[in-house]
């Protein structure tokens, strides 16, 4: 897998922004299709379009896990 140069931005109370050279695979190892070069990955668990974010965290008042 060629993930060299990929970057993940952890958005407080929000998704993970993934940009660069990446590939997203499902549990069967199949590529999850996406048409965009930068994606937002759901972190709150409530998105209707997982693994991508659909903004629902804003309605759920999602707080990221703390140490």
């Amino acid at each position, binding site marked *: 897998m060629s993930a060299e140069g990929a970057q993940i*931005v952890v*958005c*407080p*109370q*929000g*998704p993970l*922004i993934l*940009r660069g050279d990446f590939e997203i695979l499902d549990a069967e190892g199949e590529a999850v299709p996406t*048409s*965009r*070069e*930068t*994606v*937002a990955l759901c972190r709150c668990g409530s998105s*209707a*379009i997982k693994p*991508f*974010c*659909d*903004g*629902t965290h*804003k*309605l759920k008042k999602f707080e990221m896990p703390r140490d």
Partner: protein
Amino acid sequence: MELPEDRGRISESLFEVLRTYDPDVDLSGLEHEAFKVLDSEDILHSEDIQIVLFVLYELHYRGFDGIDARWEWNPPLLGLRAKIEEQFEARLRQIAGDPSFSLGSAQDTARQLFALASADDGPSVSTYISRHATVEQAREFLMHKSIYQLKEADPHSWAIPRLTGRGKSALMEIQFDEYGAGRPGAMHSELFETTMRGLGLDSEFGAYIESLPAITLASVNMMSFFGLHRRLRGSIAGHLAIYEMTSSIPNARYARGFRRLGFDSPVTDYFDEHVEADAVHEQIAGRDLAGGLIEQDPSIAEAVFFGAQAACAIDALVGAHQLEAWGRGRSSLRQPKVKVEA
């Protein structure tokens, strides 16, 4: 597009002038007349003044069939626009309220913009479309949106050469996606064309201009005003941030509404695309674009939050106009005639 029909004595005189190019045209009388109109009318709801502003701005985008392109930089015409803009800006500042913010990191800016977007308690057109709208109201909704969505992202592109650094990279990342990432046919404006055609509507830019009320024109004129003035580059960035932050959840509702009415892909593609795209864009616009600009130059914060607050205020007025009309069982269009292709 064709030059639209006039809506009063200012637009009537101006559109007549525009038909024959005259580099030395004297518009001082018209300027005086415009001020008289604005003495008695709210500029946001003045049909005459908003159609004039729309036409003056459109000269900088794609112009009008048969209208001399040199008008774009004609000094008397620019002078007239500047005078109207002074009043437009004053009114926008009034409805936006004083910019409210505290300076901090890019993340601090994003947090404040997200809070502003979530506090936006304007009437929800998206909830109405999702649950109640008829096909006719869904068509009206698309007509209102079309005057921006058929040139989606263009007003914000004016800011690109006016920015540097992190903010510029962020804007480019968003705009690249808006314009379909280089794939012909995938521009968001083109997805919107497909949606319109799916409901039997004409997808040519400006096809429904005569049906759009002043407040709808004011919302797109505000974007052009912010975009065309380097002084307000922060405001167009703030506008984009709020626009993106109030997009993914409403677009999911629009998609549900259009499916409830019996439509599916490709009609709903535009909305589905924006659910995923704007969940990305809102993060970039809030933190890297708006936040990045303020981190680079804190003096721009006032303009950013003015743009963001004005975007919320205008959006609430546009939404209220549509919901009030529909609530009374009336059309929200300026003319109730609906042009529908067979």
